[in-house]
């Protein structure tokens, strides 16, 4: 019994940004809380905690999700990609580079969610139209930019990635 944890704590093992992590979470923790409070990955942001703003977006087993609406317990054995997992040691992801070059962020709080959502978009549709990009990203709120430069950055990154291949 010596290694029993408190009853409302659970042990979770998941692959996070390519690395297997085992951590202790409160059974009431959302994935967002677990990422931020238990693992220390604070790139995903809390803007609403009910799935309306997209600032906490992560990719879970290939699917774009709002991590505030997923229980931490659900990711047992799963694979999670957060904004911290987009760049390689050598280079930023083309989306990150495009966001910088196109000035697609002002305050930056929505940026991690937009980058993750845009990565999921390009994973599924490598050459989206402006219309498709706007609809795909409609679940991510930005209050600073009016979306203009974000959409341009996503389309420019798509060009860059397609031409690079």
């Amino acid at each position, binding site marked *: 019994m010596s290694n029993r944890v408190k009853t409302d704590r659970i042990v979770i093992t998941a692959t996070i940004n390519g690395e297997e992590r085992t951590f202790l979470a409160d059974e009431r923790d959302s994935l967002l809380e677990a990422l931020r409070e238990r693992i220390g990955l*604070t*790139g995903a942001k*809390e803007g609403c905690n009910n799935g309306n*703003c997209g600032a906490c977006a992560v990719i879970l087993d290939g699917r774009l999700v709002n991590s505030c609406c997923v229980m931490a317990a659900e990711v047992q054995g799963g694979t999670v990609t*957060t904004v911290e997992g987009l760049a390689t040691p050598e280079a930023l992801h083309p989306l990150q580079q495009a966001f910088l070059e196109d000035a697609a962020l*002002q305050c930056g709080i929505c940026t991690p969610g937009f980058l993750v959502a845009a990565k999921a978009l390009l994973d599924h549709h490598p050459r989206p139209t402006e219309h498709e990009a706007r609809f795909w990203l409609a679940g991510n709120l930005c*209050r600073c930019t009016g979306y203009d430069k974000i959409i341009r950055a996503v389309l420019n990154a798509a060009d860059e990635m397609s031409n690079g291949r």
Partner: protein
Amino acid sequence: MVSTEQPKQYRVIGSRPIRHDGVDKVTGRAEYGADVRHEGMLFGAVLRSPHAHARIKRIDASKAEALPGVKAVVTSADFPGAEEGDLDLGEGRANPRWLLDNLLASDKALYHGHAVAAVAATDQHTAEDALALIQVDYEVLPAVIDVREAMLDTAPILHPELRTAIRARGVEKPADKPTNLASHLRLEKGDLDKGFAEADVIIEREYETAMFHQGYIEPQNATAFWNRDGEVTVWTSTQGAFSVREQVATICQVPVTRVKVVPMEIGGGFGGKIGIYLEPVAALLSRKSGRPVKLWMTREAVFQATGPTSATYSRVKIGAKRDGTITAAHAYLAYEAGAYPGSPVGAGAQCAFAPYNIPNQVVDGLDVVVNGPKTAAYRAPGAPAAEYAVEAVLNELAEQLEMDPMELRLKNASKEGTTNAAGQPWPRIGAVEVMEAVKNHPHYTSELTGEDVGRGVAMGFWFNGGMESSSSATVNADGKVSLILGSTDIGGTRASLAMQLAETLGITSDDVKPHVVDTDSVGFTAVTGGSRTTFAGGWAAYELGVQIRDRMRERAARIWETAVDKVEYRDDGTIAGPDGKQLSFQELAGKLSATGGMIAVSATVRMNTPGPAYAGHIVDVKVDRDTGKVEILRYTAVQDVGTAIHPSYVEGQIQGGVAQGIGMALTEEYFYDDEGRLRNASFLDYRMPVANDLPMIETVLVEVPNPGHPYGVRGVGEVPIVPPQPAIQQAVYDAIGVRFYKTPMSPRVILEELLPE
């Protein structure tokens, strides 16, 4: 870009370098308020009133305090109390007693969501559990939430001691009895009756605007540690670290230098993160528990208890001669202040007729308390509602006079030397340049075809701010310059300030490393607000550059054993002496240590020469008769930006302001029920524009340099939120022939008009 005066040749200004804080913000490393972590840190939660107006008879927190994991509970009784006064917040003012009462309600809860108690516990879940154990006995009182109802004799009274402050000649002083009308101001110029008598056409209309929230994506947060030696440290997302320091010191009654505020990255503010909501509460919880305490607002609480801007009622009357000359204008503006006095009606009153040279005008501004959250500054505070009413009347006037709406505006445009509502002459302004750029724009001159489509135009004005900014800089041995800033970077000011220093020194933007630091590490700096930061902070950066140039010349003179006046500092950063001697900035920087030491300089500026901003917008819409939805087909925003330091971020400010203005025009509003409870406190139900609601937003940067700034900077951030409401109102009328006098023009409102009874 449209340049209207002899353009200056710049090396760095006008280019588009990658912002210095960019990589941290795209990789998730940037630390915002919620990302603060300290060993032993407690997590807090705030209990809020379920009633819009209620007497608090008793608070029993004993069960919460007994819950394992709970370390402290506070109510307003734990605060030392506050005296009446007038605290300058930077963009607005506050009476400390009301500020304190808003942080934690004392004898009455004055709005749905008003904080009444706070808890600190070892984790967030426990803190939230504890809230449910706090018992509050309320005596529910009748509430009033509408500005006009609040002024009726029969209205429930929020503050029995409140009397109307009269700031106007000729307004009768009301009887000495309780009221919700906090103040009445009047601006007067010329002879109104004479002006209307000269008019051939007079139009008078009434308008209403809803309560709108700033809608920043990052909720308010504060982490505080009250050390055993009485030193208080606060980590928070704020537009003004020094403003927070002042407010915390006043409320907690500690000397101001005992408070250190560490500004974290800020996830949007738009005026809403100048006043404080959590910081002193976190500090008090920390003093009680002896541990750092983090407080974090839920989104629901953000909507219930922070922001918003005033809901308004206004009446505007304008008279003109047959040829379009405006002879007289009167505006009556009634603004909700929320639960405590202090709406932005004063600024609204001054903005109302600012684009126009009107000889006879009166503006009445009323500040009215209601059972809603205390309103906060929101992008051009007070201006959108006042100018919406004026611009909408002008569009009707143009139609009656059978004049082009831009022609009517040009005929009456404010210019350098004409006087504003306060009787002051305008400095060099770009109202005419903007109006002409709108009138000549291919969007304006193009033909619009299709069913249920329409076009509208409108102008906007905002003062722009000056105020105080401090900065320091150090030249490093590798030729890079560290720039220490007191201004929170809310959307690219590290870049815009570093670029102005780089321009002054003839080095690149990347050669300057900007840092935003805490209140102990830089001189006093006013808030990031009022579109003042790139203007006043830029002037401080320029002064640093001038000082560094002089010091570099002195050093070169010493090295070359010549007189300082024989050494020239060239615009490209080359330091040149006699006989062709020459050093680059980098080369000389490398010699500083061995020739007398490194160079460090500081500057504080207090600016009173801001350049006012004018904007003109053109919008095409299509109205869907089945759903009532208004689609924005095309949007063009023209603006006098003075000098665009980093054009991408100037465009971004304009596009963001337009998007917020479109939200005001079409979808955003607070819904209160009959009991005064807010019914749409979520991003799903408070409907801000999303990516598929908007087209690309074209920007036209008109550059009329501000003669009151070394680089011609005017502010750019605020004015673009002003024109969208009237421009879209006109476009909807053009599309379906119906004028709406209330915003937002939501699908429900439009359908009610279009559908048969």
